[in-house]
């Protein structure tokens, strides 16, 4: 999901205005107070502008943090505002906390003791990870849209890959005149067993293109021609079980030559040269599955980048909120 639209800032305009007006108001209030008061230091957190900025920043941080519990099913049922609005507010109000926090701790940039230093380090880490995540969300979805026509659900990558491997094995064994062994495999659950038992066809995802539009469709492929020559059949089986199947199942972890697209193309060209023309559609199918597996690997990597920052942003935010509450208590107690 793109949080910032590709063309123009559109619906973000209102929030950008909030951010700019908030920053300007905080700056004016702080600087006017600083240059009209008799204190030798920049106003700190206990001064009027510093205190107001601190309260606002603290309130915003708590609001920002509430984005997480809002995703909990029970809280989501309350239907508090639209998700898009929450995300826009999360971005721009989160950025507004930067000037507010700076004016809260004062322009002499004395961060104080351990608690406030920890708080500031966490704050900047949260802001940095948030901006990093925002940037990734502008780039990676587009990249995935362009480069991953075979994209599937991230959590089902392994499952789909195993299904593809089973389908491929079915077709290869039938082409070699042998029966599939999947129906007896202990590791299959009942549902999978039903799917693969004694069938002479494969249900497979196929990437199709029409003009510049790519997409995948689920199709059923019948068994291909049978290899008559035992030597060629042995070659086909060895190629499949030694190179293709491990890669289809494990992807880059198989440490296979098929991981690299160029080497994979060379590999399948070699197969085509060794096999009869009737078997070439099977080779084509195997190559498609290999390409899909490569896309799954890329999808996993991109998915980790796209969502992995949250595994840093969220824990830091939780720690930030805990220390923020402690800071509020101690700051008022010893201000």
């Amino acid at each position: 999901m793109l949080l910032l639209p590709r063309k123009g800032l559109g619906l973000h305009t209102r929030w950008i205005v909030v951010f700019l007006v908030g920053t300007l108001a905080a700056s004016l209030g702080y600087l006017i107070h600083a240059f009209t008061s008799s204190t030798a230091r920049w106003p700190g957190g206990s001064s009027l502008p510093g205190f107001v900025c601190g309260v606002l920043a603290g309130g915003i941080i708590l609001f920002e943090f509430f984005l997480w519990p809002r995703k909990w099913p029970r809280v989501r049922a309350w239907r508090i505002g639209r998700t898009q609005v929450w995300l826009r507010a999360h971005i721009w109000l989160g950025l507004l906390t930067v000037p507010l926090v700076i004016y809260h701790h004062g322009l002499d940039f004395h961060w104080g003791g351990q608690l406030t230093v920890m708080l500031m380090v966490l704050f900047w880490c949260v802001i940095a990870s948030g901006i990093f995540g925002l940037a990734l969300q502008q780039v990676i979805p587009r990249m995935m849209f362009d480069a991953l026509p075979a994209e599937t659900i991230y959590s089902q990558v392994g499952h789909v890959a195993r299904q593809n491997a089973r389908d491929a094995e079915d077709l290869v064994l039938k082409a070699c005149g042998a029966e599939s062994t999947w129906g007896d495999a202990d590791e299959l659950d009942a549902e999978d067993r039903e799917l693969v038992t004694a069938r002479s066809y494969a249900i497979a995802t196929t990437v199709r293109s029409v003009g510049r539009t790519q997409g995948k469709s689920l199709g059923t492929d019948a068994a291909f021609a049978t290899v008559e020559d035992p030597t060629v059949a042995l070659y086909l089986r060895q190629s499949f079980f030694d190179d293709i199947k491990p890669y289809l199942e494990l992807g880059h972890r198989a440490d296979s030559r098929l991981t690299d697209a160029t080497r994979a193309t060379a590999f399948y060209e070699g197969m085509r040269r060794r096999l009869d023309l009737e078997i070439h559609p099977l080779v084509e199918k195997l190559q498609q599955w290999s390409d899909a597996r490569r896309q799954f690997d890329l999808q996993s990597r991109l998915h980790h980048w796209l969502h992995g920052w949250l595994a840093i942003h969220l824990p830091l935010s939780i720690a930030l909120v805990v220390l923020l509450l402690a800071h509020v208590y101690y700051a008022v107690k010893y201000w």
Partner: protein
Amino acid sequence: MPPPPTPAKQRASRIALTYYSKPDALTLWKVAAAGLALCAALGWVAYGALVPDEGAARVSHGPLCQAHATWDTQCDACHVDFQPIRADAWAVAWYKSAADRADLDRGCRRCHAGPAHHAAQIPAEVGTCASCHQDHRGRQADIRRVADQHCLACHRLPADHSQRKPDLLAVTSFSADGHPEFRSLKTDPGRIKFTHKRHHAAGCVLHPDDMVQKKLADLDPAVRDRYRQQGQSDQDLVQLDCHSCHRLDPADATATAGDASWAAHGSGAYYLPISFDQHCQACHELSYEAGTAKPVPHGLTAAQIDVFLQDAYRREFLEENPATLEETLPRAVPGRAVRPAAPRGREFIDAKVRQAQKHLSNRCGQCHYFEEEAPTSLAVQAAAIPQVWMKKAVFDHAAHRAVSCRACHPRAFSDAADASVHETDVLIANRDVCLECHQPAQQEATSALQVGGARHDCVECHRYHAADQAVHGRGSPLRDGEHEFLIQEFFNAAAADQAR
């Protein structure tokens, strides 16, 4: 062979419909990290709350200064819970009355008096102690070194910040444009007929061709070496220098004067007071009879001198006429008054006393002014030599001992073109000489010399508390706190509060 038809259920079952109910590895990792962060943060805060010393160290904005280091982990030694301590805290506005504001400083007042700056200051403009003396800036921080802005807040426009609307000039910085000349140096309040030109010249003469020139041989042998310059014989002229009379270290003075009270005087900041007995008597002997060694103690009032002379001449008369003590009065005859003894002794004594008074009057008048001019007047005006010239500022001679005396007191030297010949001359340099060093470092326009660079902030010379008693020392009662504590009370704020 065409592919067989595929059941839609089989197509749909490629991915389990309930896949979303099982979190993926990334989600699990995220939840685990979130839980870990929550526990770590709560644990860190809880540990600080349960272990007071640790908690104080975490909340503290930095180590206290060296003088307060003992209370580094005792927040309540200075802080009162939920009460602001700094004047720039907006919540101070809640404390409107002077008593309420003073209460904010009660942690400081345990040990420090913090006397007022000026009687005419406006109470509402007086901040809390911590508004100027900000601690938590590390062990080496000098919290007495207050920034200029605190002073300039009022002294930019002093009339607007005083109840008396004084005719004070504005101060914006220590510079030729930003600071007035020193008011304390406008006049010399001293009443001593003394010129530095005469006393700095060889032989102590005002003009080189004066007939009476003082030689070392003219001085009492006991003090002669004190005034002898290197290589001089007794026949050489007396050549005084600054250190002949002005001593900085009490040890120097006691070595020659034996006056132990001087040892307590100074830390080297100010020169020790000039004393007749130590610095003048060698040349200015104070005998009450010309040509004799019959000294009168210096510093007596006219009445005390009279008593002293009477006693001295009575003693002398009796020593010369011991028979007087044995003389008997004639028996009294009823109806006739007893004839008093012959007034011979009284006449002698009175005549001697008058003569001595006249002589002493000349001697005293050599240096002193009289209360009233009369031939035998001995009532002299107080010398009134200021021991500290700067009434509103402090100066440390010891810190300037590497600088020649001539740099700041050029007119005190006899070879100066404008050497001082009047006792009313003020010979202390004013602001502009101070500015040669006490200004921001800069390169001189006419040479490659770098000048300035010495401290030039307000507190370098001025003190805020009891500002008109700038030289009061560390032992002054002005600095005492409200209470005296036992040692355990002193180190424990709670115990100290109970003691109060």
